[in-house]
């Protein structure tokens, strides 16, 4: 697992990217009114908070210094009101911004999920599921943090900062300038810190991604690990990836540990300057006592937003990285562009035509070569051939999971890539070679999301595949629980369940890709009988290795290394004495001898 980078993803270290930020902000656009309200509340709230030191100054200079007790009471009352006002404002502001964060999170998640529903299947071959799941879940959560606690409060911090600077300059600009003398120091410290943290962040991200991918995959394949007693080896590997992550994390600890005390030292220096120079001014009578106090309080608050901004820097950095990943996914165009308003066959006859079809998954590594055959309405055709000959690939083309490079495939006379996917696929029913069962219940696994399929139809389908008794005898019947990937079913049962799904959808054309490979002969025969009736006037494509299941087909296609080698019905192919004949011999040679003997 160390030698390939299937699970690696590029990591972006940039902390701020105007282009990304602009695009991110478009997600806030539908909520611009609440956002504007939040910003107004924020300004009002921070303004009120800044008023408090001013009230203290007034209290000291105008009342305490002149020993006016009544006025002091009034000032205290005013302060209390201001305080309460700022509470209301900041509560509302926080609520609204978090609310917007949630809304944006919802929208973004829907958009990514929706986009994934449109992407071509080749994309899923190349991207591990775990990574794509992260886009929809974790990465969106990171952005939520930006929207609900980052963005607005960064805005608030900046406003506070500006407010404090204005207030300081207003009180005494000379003193203010002296206090700001340390700002260059602050900038230098922050710049160094940022540079260091950025580099490490990249390492941390890569290593987390690697660790998660490893965990996910090995949890899924736990059975194999245990059967082969590889626990120790796997744990060692896990620990070395885990240790890599720890190392990157530990490195970052150092920089944070230096940065925060550094800011505090700088703030002390400015306080010292202020005290010395301010004291000098008070002595000279240029500055009042209360003004100096207010000044000190304001300067102390000056460092809070700065400290806060550096904390926010983390959020900013991770959300830039998350949004870059999300946008990259959203910008991945489906290679198979869905057709809208495509032509619809006048009559669904179930006629299929492959003409000189060439197909490769990668470049010109052709898996199907110059494939031509046709299936007329109501015909049953069978495809045989060695594993890896391209049978499943051929089916995938018919469903337009992939697009072919050359040639043409027509359904009822219309080129399938001119038809909309809904129309094309609603004609077809498929039992996949790799069975997939959803968690939920039996009914849901058959019906999927199609509410037009009644319980009676589901039961009918289950009967046809001989699963009915098994399901009905369960406590919950059709609604009994099915675990993730059907974990508590036998392999054959899973296959039968997915067969029932295809039957319940009642398609015009039924496509079976080794649909009974894990099913016993008796059940297979039973299904066969049900199918014979069901398929009477329908088209069917059947892939199977057990020749007994396909002999009755109207046409048998022998596929070899992606090419059609032989085509004809059972008798014709036997007479030809080619590949089919050889396969047939092989499958029954021994039995024949004994049967004859």
């Amino acid at each position, binding site marked *: 697992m160390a*030698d390939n980078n299937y699970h690696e993803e590029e990591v972006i270290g940039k902390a701020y990217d105007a282009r990304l930020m602009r695009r991110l902000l478009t997600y806030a656009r539908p909520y611009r009114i609440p956002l504007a309200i939040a910003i107004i509340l924020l300004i009002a709230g921070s303004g009120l*908070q800044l008023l408090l030191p001013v*009230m203290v100054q007034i209290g*000291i200079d105008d*009342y305490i*210094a002149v020993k*006016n*007790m009544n006025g002091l009471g009034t000032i205290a009352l005013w*302060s*209390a009101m201001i*305080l309460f006002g*700022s509470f209301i404002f*900041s509560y509302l502001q*926080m*609520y609204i911004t*978090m*609310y917007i964060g*949630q809304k944006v999170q*919802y929208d973004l998640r829907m958009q990514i999920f929706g986009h994934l*529903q449109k992407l071509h*299947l080749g994309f*899923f071959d*190349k991207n591990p599921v775990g990574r794509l799941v992260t886009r*929809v879940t974790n990465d969106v959560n990171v952005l939520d943090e930006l929207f609900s606690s980052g963005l607005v409060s960064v805005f608030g911090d900046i406003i506070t900062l500006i407010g404090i600077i204005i207030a300081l300059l207003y009180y005494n600009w000379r003193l203010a300038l002296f206090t700001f003398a340390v700002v260059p120091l602050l900038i230098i410290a922050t710049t160094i810190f940022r540079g260091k943290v950025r580099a490490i962040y990249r390492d941390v991200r890569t290593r987390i991604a690697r660790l*998660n991918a490893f*965990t996910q*995959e090995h949890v899924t394949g*736990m*059975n194999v690990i245990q*059967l082969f007693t590889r*626990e120790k080896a796997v744990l060692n590997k*896990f620990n070395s990836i885990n240790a890599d*992550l*720890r190392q990157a994390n530990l490195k970052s600890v150092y920089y*944070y540990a230096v940065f*925060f005390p550094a800011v505090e*030292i700088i*703030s002390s220096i400015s306080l*010292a300057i202020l005290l010395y120079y301010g*004291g*000098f001014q008070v002595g000279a009578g240029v500055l009042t*006592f209360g003004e100096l106090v207010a000044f000190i309080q304001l300067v102390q608050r000056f460092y*809070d937003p700065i400290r806060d901004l550096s904390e926010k820097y983390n959020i900013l950095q991770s959300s830039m990285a998350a949004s870059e990943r999300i946008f990259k996914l959203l910008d991945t165009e489906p290679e198979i562009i869905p057709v809208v308003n495509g032509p619809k066959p006048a009559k669904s006859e179930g006629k299929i035509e492959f003409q000189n079809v060439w197909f490769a998954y*990668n470049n010109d590594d052709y898996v199907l070569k110059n494939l031509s055959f046709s299936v007329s309405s109501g015909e049953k055709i069978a495809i045989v051939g060695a*594993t*890896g000959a391209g049978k499943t690939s051929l089916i995938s083309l018919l469903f337009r999971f992939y697009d072919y490079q050359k040639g043409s495939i027509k359904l009822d006379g219309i080129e399938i890539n001119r038809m909309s996917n809904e129309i094309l*696929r609603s004609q077809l*029913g498929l039992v996949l070679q*790799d069975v*997939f069962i959803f968690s939920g219940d039996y009914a849901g696994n058959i019906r999927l*999301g199609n509410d037009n399929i009644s319980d009676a139809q589901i039961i009918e389908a289950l009967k046809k595949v001989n699963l009915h008794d098994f399901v009905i005898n369960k406590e919950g019947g059709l609604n009994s629980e099915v675990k993730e*990937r059907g974990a508590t079913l*036998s392999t054959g049962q899973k296959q039968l369940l997915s067969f029932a799904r295809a039957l319940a959808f009642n398609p015009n054309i039924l496509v079976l890709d*080794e649909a009974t490979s*894990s099913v*016993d002969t008796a059940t297979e025969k039973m299904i066969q009988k049900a199918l014979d009736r069901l398929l009477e006037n329908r088209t069917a494509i059947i892939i199977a*290795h057990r020749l007994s299941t396909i002999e009755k087909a109207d046409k048998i296609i022998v596929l070899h290394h992606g090419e059609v080698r032989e085509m004809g019905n059972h008798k014709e192919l036997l007479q030809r004495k080619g590949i089919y004949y050889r396969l047939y011999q092989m499958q029954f040679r*021994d*039995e024949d001898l004994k*049967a004859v003997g």
Partner: protein
Amino acid sequence: MLLNPYLLKLAFDRLENHSPSNEILKIALLMVLFSVISGFFRFSMRRTLIWMSRKIEYDMRSDLFEHLLKLNPSFYHNTRTGDIMARATNDIEAVRMMIGPGIMQMSNTIVTAVTAISFMLYLSPSLTLISLIPLPILSILVNRLGQIVHKQFMKIQDYYAVLTSKVQENLSGVRVIRAYNQEDSEMKSFSAHNEKYISLNMGMIRIYSMFYPLLFMLAGTVNIFVLYFGGKAVVLGEMSLGTLVAFFTYLAILIWPMIALGWVISMYQRGTASLDRINKILYTKPAIESSSISHNKSELQGKIECKALSFAYNGKKVLHDINLLIEAGMTVGIIGPTASGKSTLVSLIGRLFPISRGQIFIDDIDINDWDLHSLRSKIGFVPQEPFLFSDTISNNIVFGVDFANPAEIQKAAESAVINKDIGNFNDKYETVVGERGITLSGGQKQRVSIARALLTNPKILILDDATSSVDTETEHLINMYLKGEISKRTAIIISHRVSAVKDADLIIYMETGTIAESGNHDALLSLNGRYALLYKTQLVEEELNRM
């Protein structure tokens, strides 16, 4: 840092008395000096605590994964992958936040608060008491809100796992969804999950957004108390203006830890919630462990015996009273209807599930007394559904052993008749297969899985319908190669094809969890029972067609 206000007070007192300015300079320099010293302490604390938290995070993650490696299939059948992943990621992070930054902030808060309050007491006990009035209110508030946050956070985390699983299933089952035109209905159901998740979050936010403003208001109230009562004291001449100023500064210092307190508390609530969730896994006892008297034999002959073996999954009986003797070196074929318990029987021999009733002996030793590792490492298992890692083909084949040289890998691949296919791939043995081997055809996956088992050179080879997706011709080749491999060891072959089992020394016909018939091919044929019937159906049908 904490001395600053006191130094300020000294400075202000001097200012009031019009002391020379170098006195003030001295105080200012002291201020910088102290902050350097305290900065050093903070630096050390951060390094120690966060450093520690990262190490604990490492240990925790490692422990969790190690425990996961011990848990049995039944755990994985009943737990969603998304749930496990959420614990390995989000929950561990929440616990780390609690012990790293959480403890750091907590100690910061305590040290700051204690020092500030003692200085304040020193300056004016009565004013200090007045300013501490809101404290009890604070603690009640924090406690109440904290509990709500804890509960809500648990709910959110649980639902997050549901959401994750939903996405995961949607993407893993993408072919089914596309083939059945279910994109829209998937969008609908995802939207419902998404909404539910958001509404749970909103429940949290309603409380959460009150947290900081409330703390801030409390701090502000204290400020006003001090302004009023302290001002009164100054007016009455009981206190100097410098003291009042210092008092204010201490209060300003107290605001930050107060706010941090809110942060620490929510971190603590999340951390404990997450720890509960992690512990739920850690406290799950593995159903199967090596027993204390475990036999750790390096040699295993391969004799298998089942005595009155019964087995049930969650109370549902699947195997009934199985008696079976397999001598070392024998080849056994198992055949029978779907769901008759074939896979269950062999998984018990691999000791994947604890036995409910009866016994299994391997080399005359009860399977429960075997050391798990030494037992399983002698069994080569080809599961009914092959699992490949998203790695190179060669690493997938080597998976079962520590090391194998290219010649050995090649030989295993040849025996499994996959070497030709691999030769056709662009990167040969270094071809990376997608997740679960998605870029291979069904039969290719099965054969890689067979090669993997062969490479471990097992004493007992179990093939659970291992060639169901393999074409006849290739299957024939595999059987030919396997014959050589099988003769050296005990072999159990499950298949639906009579041709795959009929040469076995012993054939077992299973039906609804019992052994209905057993014997060799000829014996079973002369029994003229189920096996004979199956044989005839598979064969005679061909004969009919042939004519």
